[in-house]
C-alpha cells in the first residue's frame, strides 16, 4: 500500500478554521480537517475533544459559528442531515440508525423506493437491494427479512449500503466497531478497503488504537476542541498518539514527582475478588483482587472498558461468566441491592443523570442512600438529618455550606462532593468512583483526591476510575490498565505516568 501524499492531491472535503461554541463551552476552536478520496482517515481524541461536534457539524445537525467547508472544491453550507446526504456526505452511527421493523431492502431504499404511478415496486426494490449488497459489500442475505433478524454487524453493513446508494462521496463511520467481535471487524475492514479502492473517502472514528493503525492512512487528533495535528499513521508512534490525545509531553511527565503510595502498599487483607469475571461485548474476563484500605485505579482510554469493569463490581450489569467473591460475607453480588448490602457504594460517571437529584436540597441528597438502606419505614429523624448534613458539609468542604440549598444550584465539584457524602454516610467497605473529578475545577479535584487518600488510610477500599493519568498515579496503590475492553496490565510499584501511558498504548 502506498502512502497517501496529501500535498499533491486535491482533498474532496476540506474544513478550515471551524469554530463552534455552546453556552460556556468552546466545542470547536479553529479546527481544520482534510479528507482525500480513496483514504481512510481516523479522527482521534478523548472525551470532550470535539470529535462528535465535528461530525455533527459535517452532517448538518449543528451549524458552524465560523469557518468554511468545501466539498469537491466548492463551498457548501449544510443545514440538515438531508442536505448532507444530498451533498454526498453519509454517516453510519454507532447505534445503527435504521428501522429494525422494516425489511433490509426497505431500509436501504426507504424514501427513494422505485415506484410506478405512486405504487411501490417491491420486486424491483428487493432485486436492487440484493444486487447492491452482493456487488459492493459481498453480502448475500435475504433482503426481504426484517432488519432485526440480523446481527449488529450486518445491520451496520446495511446502513453502509444505504449510504452508498445515496451515492456518497464521503462516508463517516462513527465508532462502527464498538459492538462488533473480531471476525465482524475483519469483515468490515475488508469492505472498507474495497470502498477505499473505489475512491470513497472514509472518515473513521474509533477509540480502538489497534484498529486505527490497521486501517487508516492518516490521523487527525483533536483535544479540548482544538486541532492538535494531522499525521501520517505510519509516521506516528502509538505512544506519541496517546500523549497527543491526552495532552502531556512525555519528557515533562517523566519529571513529575510521584505523590502516591508512601508506605501504604504493604500486603493488605483482601476484601473482594473477581475471578474470571467478564461480560460479552463489555469487558473480557479478568481477575482482580482489591485489598482492605487499598486504592485501585482503572486506567485506559475512553471505551477501554473502565466503566464496564466498575459496573460489574457493583452488580449494575450482569456478568456472563466468572464470579465476584466477597471475603467477609458468603455469596456473590448479583444486583446493586446486594452490593449495597455488602457495603459497596458506586458513584456513577454521569452525575447529572445517574447521581444527584436536582430539585432536592443538599441535605435530602446526602441522606438518600442511608435512608434507602434503613428502609423507607424507618425515617431518619430531622434532627439527625441536619446533624449528618452539617457534619459532611464541613468534612467535605461543600460550598455554600447550607444544607437547604438546592443541589442544582451547586457547582459541578460541589455536586460531586454531595454524592460522595451520600455514599460515605453508608460507611461502605468499597467505594467505586467513576470519573469523580470530570469537569470540575482544579481546586475541587485536589480536595477530592485528598479525600480519597484519607478514606483509604481509614481502611476503606476505593476503586477509582479516571481518564486523567496524573490523578491516577497520584492516588493509587495499584493501577490496572485496560485497553480495547481487556485488562492488559496490573502495576504495583514504581508507577510512573510514562509506564502507564506505554501500557495504555500497547503494541
Amino acid at each position, binding site marked *: 500500500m502506498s502512502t497517501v501524499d496529501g500535498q499533491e492531491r486535491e482533498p474532496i472535503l476540506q474544513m478550515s478554521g471551524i469554530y463552534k461554541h455552546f453556552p460556556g463551552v468552546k466545542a470547536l476552536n479553529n479546527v481544520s480537517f482534510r479528507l482525500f478520496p480513496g483514504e481512510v482517515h481516523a479522527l482521534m481524541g478523548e472525551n470532550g475533544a470535539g470529535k462528535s461536534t465535528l461530525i455533527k457539524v459535517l452532517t448538518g445537525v449543528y451549524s458552524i459559528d465560523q469557518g468554511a467547508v468545501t466539498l469537491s472544491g466548492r463551498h457548501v453550507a449544510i443545514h440538515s442531515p438531508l442536505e448532507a446526504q444530498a451533498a454526498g456526505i453519509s454517516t453510519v452511527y454507532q447505534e445503527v440508525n*435504521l428501522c*429494525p*421493523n*422494516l425489511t433490509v431492502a426497505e431500509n436501504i431504499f*426507504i424514501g427513494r*423506493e422505485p415506484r410506478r404511478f405512486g405504487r*411501490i415496486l417491491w420486486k424491483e426494490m428487493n432485486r436492487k437491494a440484493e444486487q447492491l449488497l452482493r456487488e459492493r459489500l459481498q453480502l448475500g442475505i435475504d433482503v426481504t427479512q426484517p432488519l432485526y433478524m440480523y446481527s449488529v454487524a450486518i445491520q451496520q453493513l446495511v446502513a453502509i449500503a*444505504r449510504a452508498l446508494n445515496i451515492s456518497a462521496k464521503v462516508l463517516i463511520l462513527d465508532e462502527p466497531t464498538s459492538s462488533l467481535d473480531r471476525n465482524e471487524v475483519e469483515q468490515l475492514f475488508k469492505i472498507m478497503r474495497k470502498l477505499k479502492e473505489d475512491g470513497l473517502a472514509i472518515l473513521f472514528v474509533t477509540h480502538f488504537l489497534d484498529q486505527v493503525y490497521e486501517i487508516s492512512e492518516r490521523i487527525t487528533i483533536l483535544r479540548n476542541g482544538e486541532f492538535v495535528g494531522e499525521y501520517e499513521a505510519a509516521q506516528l508512534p502509538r505512544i506519541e498518539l496517546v500523549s497527543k490525545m491526552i495532552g502531556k509531553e512525555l519528557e515533562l511527565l517523566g519529571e513529575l514527582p510521584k505523590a502516591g503510595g508512601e508506605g501504604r502498599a504493604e500486603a493488605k487483607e483482601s476484601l473482594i475478588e473477581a475471578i474470571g469475571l467478564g461480560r460479552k461485548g463489555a469487558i473480557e474476563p479478568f481477575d482482580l483482587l482489591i485489598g482492605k484500605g487499598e486504592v485501585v485505579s482503572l486506567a485506559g482510554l475512553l471505551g477501554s472498558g473502565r466503566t464496564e469493569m466498575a459496573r460489574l463490581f457493583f452488580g449494575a450489569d450482569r456478568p456472563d461468566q466468572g464470579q465476584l467473591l466477597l471475603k467477609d460475607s458468603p455469596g456473590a453480588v448479583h444486583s446493586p441491592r446486594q452490593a449495597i448490602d455488602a457495603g459497596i457504594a458506586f458513584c456513577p460517571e454521569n452525575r447529572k443523570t445517574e447521581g444527584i437529584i436536582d430539585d432536592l436540597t443538599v441535605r435530602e441528597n446526602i441522606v438518600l442512600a442511608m435512608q434507602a438502606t434503613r428502609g423507607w419505614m424507618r425515617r431518619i429523624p430531622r434532627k439527625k438529618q441536619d446533624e449528618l448534613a452539617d457534619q459532611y458539609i464541613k468534612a467535605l468542604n461543600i460550598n455554600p455550606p447550607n444544607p437547604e440549598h438546592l443541589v442544582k444550584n451547586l457547582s459541578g465539584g460541589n455536586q460531586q462532593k454531595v454524592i460522595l457524602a451520600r455514599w460515605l454516610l453508608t460507611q461502605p467497605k468499597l467505594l467505586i468512583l467513576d470519573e469523580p473529578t470530570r469537569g470540575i475545577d482544579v481546586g475541587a479535584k485536589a480536595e477530592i483526591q485528598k479525600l480519597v487518600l484519607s478514606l483509604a488510610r481509614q481502611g476503606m477500599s476505593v476503586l477509582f476510575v479516571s481518564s486523567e493519568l496524573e490523578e491516577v498515579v497520584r492516588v493509587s496503590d495499584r493501577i490496572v490498565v485496560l485497553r480495547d475492553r481487556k485488562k492488559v496490565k496490573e502495576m504495583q510499584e514504581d508507577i510512573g505516568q510514562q509506564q502507564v501511558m506505554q501500557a495504555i498504548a500497547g503494541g
Partner: protein
Amino acid sequence: MFKQKYLSIAVTVFLFAVMFLAGSFRYTGFFSLQVILNLLIDNAFLLIVAVGMTFVIVTGGIDLSVGSVIALTTMMSASLVQEHGWPPAVVIPLMLVIGSLFGWVMGAIIHYFKIQPFIVTLAGMFLARGLCYVISINTITIDDAFYTKMAQTKIHLPGGSFISISVIIALVVIAAGIYIAHYTRLGRNIYALGGSEQSALLMGLPVARTKIAVYTLSGFCSALAGVVFTFYMLSGYGLHAMGLELDAIASVVIGGTLLTGGVGYIFGTFFGVLIQGVIQTIISFEGTLSSWWTKIVIGLLLFLFILFQRVLSARQATQKL
C-alpha cells in the same frame, strides 16, 4: 417460507375460526354465511374506525377521540339534515372534511408541541363529546329519504344472503387501508416512524408530515364511521359510540398490532373486529348471558394477546440469523 412476522395474524385468524366453529357446533342456525355477513353489517363503523386506529398505533401513537368524533358526526349530520334541511350530498362531504381537520389539528399539536398523543386525543375526546350537547341534549331522529334508503337497502348476494351499503364502504376502506400501508411511501413512512422516529429523521424521511397525516387519516376514518353509524342508527345523539375508541384499540391489538409501534396489519385488525363481533353473536345466541360478558371475554383476550406478543418479541430478540 412461512414468515414469523405473520405468526401473530395467523393466531388471530385461527382464533376467529375456532370461535366460529365452536358457535356452529353449539347453536343451530349459527353456521351460515348470513351470520358472518351480519358481523360485518353490525360492525361496519368499527371496521372503519379501526383502520384509522391501526395506522395511528403503528406509529406508536393512540387516538382516543374517535368515539366522540363519531358521536359529533351523527349529531351534526342529524341537526343539519333534519333541523336545517341541508341536502345529504353537502352534509356528508362536510362531515368528512371536519373530521379530517379535527385529526389534523390534533396531529399538528402532537408533533409541533411534542405532547403525548394520549393527552392530546383525550382532550379531543372531551371536546368533541361536549360539542354534541351544544347542538342538543336529546336524540335527533332522522327521517330523511336518503338516509333511510342507505339504512334499509339490502344488497342481495347469490345464495339468498345480503349485506348493507355500509359493509361495502367498510370493505373499500379496508382495501384502501391495505394499499396505503404496503404500496405507498406514506404507508412505509408510517411503519418507519413506528420502528424508530429518531432513525426516520436521520434517514431524511418526512416525519412531521407523516405523523400529522396519520391523525388526519384517523379523523377522516372516524367521520366516515360517524356517517355509517348515522345510517345504522338513523339518529344523532351525544351518547352514541360511548367507549368505541376502546373497542377499536382492542380490535387493533387483538389483530396483532404492537402498541409500541412499527408492527401491525390492517388485515389483522379486520379479524380483530370480527372476533369481537363473533363473541357478541355467541352471547346473543346463548340468550341468557348478559351482554357484559362480551367485555369480560374481550378483556381476557386482550391480556392473552399482549402476553403472547411479549413472548414473541422476546423470542425475536434472541433469535438472529
